[in-house]
C-alpha cells in the first residue's frame, strides 16, 4: 500500500500539468471563439480548387 505515497503526488503532478496546459491555452485565446473553429474544420482543403467548370455548371435545379 505504501505505493500510494508515490501515486498521489504522481497523480497530482499529472493533474497540475493538465491545469497548466489549460491555463496556457486559455491565455493564448484558444477558448475565445468556440463557434468558428467548428465550422472551419468541416471544409477539406480539397474544396479549395475543384474543377472550375463542373462546380459552376452542375448547379442542380431546386
Amino acid at each position, binding site marked *: 500500500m505504501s505505493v500510494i505515497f508515490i501515486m*498521489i503526488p504522481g*497523480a497530482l503532478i499529472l493533474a497540475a500539468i493538465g*491545469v497548466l496546459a489549460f491555463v496556457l491555452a*486559455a*491565455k493564448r485565446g484558444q*477558448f475565445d471563439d468556440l*463557434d468558428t473553429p467548428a*465550422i472551419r474544420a468541416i471544409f477539406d482543403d480539397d*474544396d479549395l480548387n475543384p474543377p472550375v467548370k463542373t462546380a459552376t455548371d452542375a*448547379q442542380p435545379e431546386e
Partner: protein
Amino acid sequence: MINDPTSIAQTIRCDHCQLSVPSGLIEPDEPHQFCCHGCKSVWNVLHGAGLDGYYAVRKSVDPNPQRTSATGDSYEELDDPAFQETCVENLPGGQAQTELLLEGMHCAACVWLIERLPSVVDGVVESRANIRRRTTVVCYQPDKVKLSDIARGLDRLGYAAHPARGAAAREARIKEDRKFLIRVGVAGAIAGNIMIMAIALYGGALEGISPTWETTFRWYSMGLGVLALVWPGRVFFIGAIAALRTRTAHLDIPIALALGVGGLWGSFNTITGKGEIYFDSLAILVFLLLVGRWVQHRQQRAASDHVELMLTLTPSNATRVNEDGSTTRVPIESIEEGMVVQVEAGGSIPADGILETGHTNIDTSFITGESRPVPVHAGDEVVAGATNLSSPIRLRVSAVGESTRVGKLMQLVASASADKAPIVRFADRIAVIFVFTVITLALITFAYWTWSSGVRTGIEYATALLIVTCPCALGLATPMAMSIAMGRAAKSGVLVKSAAAIESLARPGTMILDKTGTITQGQMSVVEHNCSNEMLKCAAIIEQTSNHPIARAITDSVDLSESQSTASDINQTIGAGISGYVDDDYIEIGSPTYINSNHQIDEATNTEIKKMIEQSLSPVVLYTKEHGFGVLGIGDPIRDDAAQSIQILNDQRWDIHLCSGDHPAIARAVASQVGIMKVQGSVSPEGKAEFVKAMRAQSSSQSKHRVIMVGDGVNDAAALACADVGIAVQGGAEASLEAADIYLMTQGVYPLITLCSLAKHTMRTIHVSLIFSIGYNTIAAALAMTGVINALIAAILMPISSLTVVALSSRKWKGPRKCQSFSS
C-alpha cells in the same frame, strides 16, 4: 421582381445566389446567368480567384439563398492616418492587423469565403473570421495593399466592412473573459482531485482506516483546499471586502464567511489531527458558484457584443470639401473647426456648423424630440446628429466632438451613469438577512455547546453550521435563472445588458416613455386622408418629383409600382406647395393658404382642416378640377401596438408618464390617443434627465418602486442613464444604445410586455429556488445545531440543493399571458 408572375424565368436561376433570374435580365447567349449586378460581380471575383468551391461549400451548409448587396463604398476613410493610429495594430515584420466587423456574415460558407480573402486581395496575409461576433481579423502587408482595398474586396464579396472601434477596451474584456474561464477550470480541477481524497476519507470513516493514511489524505485535502480558496476562490473574498467597505449588502459576504471560517477551522483540525475537515465541500462550493457566474457573464457578454456591433454600423465618416472644391471622405475624428463639410440628402450631419450653401429640411428628432422636419437656409445653425432630409448642403464647422450639442449631452450621460446608485439585487437583499440569521445561530450554537461540552465542540458545530448554510443554492440559482432569462429575451428580440434590469421589471413601478420614435414611428407619413384614393395617387405621382419630407410622406403612402401615369409641368413653390399635370389632369397640392390664394376653400374643407389641426396633424390640401378639394393630415403616426401595450401596462398597475421634447399640444394629442394621463411636452434633454431623477427621489421612499425610462434618441440618452432601468427601442440613436440597459431589437413597444412577463417569471423562479434552498438550509442548520451533522451529510446535502435549484431555473416560460397572438 422575384415574385413577378409574368416572369418566364422560373427555371433559370442566378449562378451566384440561386434565386430566379428576372426575364429582363436573361442573356440567352451567356453561359452564366445572374439576377442582379451584385451577384454578377461577386461571381466574377470568385471565379477569377479560383474560388468556385464556395458554391459547393454553400450548398452543403446553407439551403436558403440570399441576394448579395455590395454597397460600392470607396472606404477612403480607412486610409486616414489618424484612423489607422487608433484601429490598426502594427506587427513585427512590417505587417499590420485590424479587426473588421462584417455585415451579412451568417453561415459556414461565409466563413470559408472570408478566410480565403488572401486569394482575392493581394497583400492580405491572413483573414480569420469569428462567426459569433461577425468579425474578421485581417493581417496584411501595408506596403503592398491599402486597408481601403481590403475593405473594398470584402464589399465586392457582399460583406460590407466596418472598422471595429474601441480596440483597447475589447482587449481588456477578452483578458477578463480568459481570467474568468481559467478560474472556473482551475476550481473544477481542484474540486475533482479533492473528491478523490474525500472518498478515501469517507470510506475510511465507515470501514476503518489507519491513522497514517488518514493524516496523509487530510494534509493533501488541505493543500488542495487552501489552493482552491486562495486562487479561484479569491474573488469571493475580494467581493466581500469591497461590499463591506462600501457598506452594501452582497451575497459574497455570507459566501466568504463560510469559505473563510471553514478553511481556517479545517486547517486547524488538519494540523491538530482531530475533528472534521471541510475542504471537499468548500472546493465544490467555489466551483459551482463560479460556474453559475460564468454562465451569466457569457450571456451578458453576448448581449453587449451585439449592441457593440450595432454601434459600429452607425456611420463614422464625413465628406470634407477641400480648398480646390474637391471632396474627400474622412473619418469623423479628423474634422476640425472651420472646415467645410458636405452632407448628402439622407446623410447625418457630422458636426455643429453654419449652413454655407443650399437649403434643406433637417430632422432633429434624435436631439430635440421635435417630430416635424425643420427647414434651414444659408446662415442657419445646424447641430451634429441631425439628419439632412431634402437636398445636399455644405456647412462650415463651428464645433466638433465634445463641444457639440451632442457631445455635451454625452458628457451628461457619462456623469449620470457614474452617479447612478447600483440597484440592490434580490439575492443581495436576502444576503443581509442571511448573514444576520446565520451569525446569530452560529453564536447560539457555539455558546450552547461550549457551555455543555467545551470550546472545541462549540467551534466544531458552529463551523459546520456556517458551511452547511452557505447560500450556495441561492448564489447558483440567481445567475442560472438570469442567464436563461437573458437567452429567452434575446430569442424574442430583446437584448439585456444587465441582470439587475430584469429584476427591476418584475414589479410595476414608474415607466416614463418618450414620444417621437418610441410611441410614434418617428417618421412623417399620411395619417388621415379625406379624399378619394384616385386623388391621393395623383398627389403621390406629383410629389415623387420633390424631396420635401411631406412630399415623401405622401409618396410613401401609395403603392406606385403598378402606376403607368407620368407627371409633367411641375411647378414648385418652396415652403408652400406644388402643382402639375398627371397625364392630362391638373392638380395642386399645398398648405391651406397656398391653395386658398388660388381657389376659395369651401366650408366643409375648412372644418376638415380644423379637425386635422386639433389632432396635431399638419393639413395638406389637394385640389383638382374634377374632384374639388381634398385634405391630407400629415403627422408622425403612432405605432400600431402602442395603445394596446400601454393598456396592458396600465392594467398591470404601472404608473405611465409621457415625456417629450416635442410641442406640448402634439404630446398631449398622442398621449390621449394611446391612453396616457400624465404628459409633459417641450422637455429639454437635460429636463428629461432631471425629471427621471425627481421621479427616482420621489419613489425611493417607497422601496422596490423602480423608475424605467423608455426612449430612442440622443435626447433620451441622459434620462436612460439616470433611470433604474433604461430601455432603448428599435432604431434608436447610438447614444441611447450605449446608455440603455436593455435594447429592443424588434419594432414597437409590445416587447416591453414580453419583457415584463419574462422578468416576473424569472423572479418567481428565483423565489421558488430560494424557498427550496432555505428549506435545505433549515434542515441542515437544525442538524448542525443539534450536533447530528457530520462532514459527509454536509457534502451530500449541498450538491443536492444546488442541483435542485439548477433544475428549477430552467422552468418553462409560456410567454406573456395576454395578447399572445398579437406579437406574432
